[in-house]
């Protein structure tokens, strides 16, 4: 095989990148969560049960579902149970209180918190959790959380 010259590969790579930049579904979800929520119109949502925090989580979930053109279908439970169901693909998203340095980090990917100030990394705050590697879905929910944060700062 003829060996690729470095300059060619750089050109090739930048050509690919330009192509990608024009592409809407980038990054994609390996398991297609985002598409599934959009096409089914249902966002299977886990809410971590706990005292007095669920209302806010339901409101956030409803707004996120709305932005994806879906309605939320709620299920309450402990984070352990919900995150496992998330990992299996039985839920699309879990809302709850998780720290940035959560011990659950190996099981799910978390968005930033919609709260304006950034908390210490071991303090649980409200976040959305998605299955590992569902990058498009994670990007979408993170953008939603950012919007919430902006709205909160604006109000």
């Amino acid at each position, binding site marked *: 095989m003829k060996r690729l010259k470095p300059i060619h*590969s750089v050109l090739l*790579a930048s050509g690919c990148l330009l192509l990608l930049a024009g592409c809407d579904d*980038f990054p*994609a979800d390996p398991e297609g969560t985002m598409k599934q929520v959009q096409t089914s119109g249902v966002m299977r949502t886990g809410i971590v049960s706990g005292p007095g925090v669920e209302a806010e989580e339901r409101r956030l979930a409803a707004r996120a579902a709305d932005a994806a053109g879906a309605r939320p279908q709620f299920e309450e439970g402990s984070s352990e149970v919900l995150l496992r169901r998330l990992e299996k693909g039985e839920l699309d998203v879990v809302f709850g209180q998780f720290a940035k340095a959560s011990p659950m980090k190996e099981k799910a990917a978390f*968005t930033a918190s919609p709260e304006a100030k950034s908390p210490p990394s071991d303090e649980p705050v409200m976040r959305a959790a998605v299955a590992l*590697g*569902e*990058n498009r879905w*994670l990007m979408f929910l993170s953008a939603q959380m950012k919007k919430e944060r902006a709205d909160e700062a604006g109000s």
Partner: protein
Amino acid sequence: MKPVPDHLQSDLKHAIRLEWWTLAWQTSIVVVMYFVLGSSQAMKSAWMEDLLGLVPAGIFLLSVHFERQPPTPKFPFGFLRVNSLAFLASASVLVFMGAYLLYDSVSKLIAMEHPTLGPITLFGETIWIGWVMMAALAYSVIPPVIIGRLKQPVSKRLRDKVLHTDALMQKADWMTGLAGILGVSGVGFGFWWADSVAAALIALDIAHDGLRAARVAIAELSDGMPRELGGTKIDKDAKALKSVLEKRHPGSEVRLRETGRFIAAQVTGPHLPDEPAPLEDLWTGDPAYSWRLANVSYAPKRD
């Protein structure tokens, strides 16, 4: 003995400068890559390769320092082989690190771990971290490829094995960058396995670099015949020298070995010359490298 003959002093200075540049650029790459490692296995492997890329440059600078030290009663032959010794040590680090990263990547592949590459906020803008990773990988390729190309001709003139191997490794660095970019963009397309596959390829390249360095060092440390620069074959000039000596001393055993950049010859036989030939007459190879023949020693043969 001087580390290099007078007419190569400027090349040696140039090489030293290039290696300091390597250390500086490579450090900048290691820092940039560190901040965007994320949870990408390919980035981890590429970062480790960039980090290990500091090692040959450091070894070259150290061995130049040692080469200049005069022999001591404890080390009467000087310190010309320090480079190969250090090179062998670093080669084993490369091989083990490559093997570890290969194991790490393959086990992630088997566990079907989906790499999570989410958003990153830079200067108030939130973008996909994959873009930043690809930019960092593209940056990580440019300095080594340029410096590697600059080093290669100097390393040939100096006959420096460490410098030459370093140059070859750096010239091949673009493949690491490309593999990393393909891995990260593959994840962008939804192919979760692209990341680990790229990481495994980079790990193989690290191990390969290690084996190449080990081969170069072992040939010298075990008193092997002088090898071609960057190869395993016996050096042409050394072959020519050997046949010249054999012709002059029929029935004698002629053995050559390499010490740093230099070649030493030993003639062992029953009929030793009263008046040894001047070294210049013995070198029939490339005259540009005649300085490499440091000495010929004649030893009587025991019956």
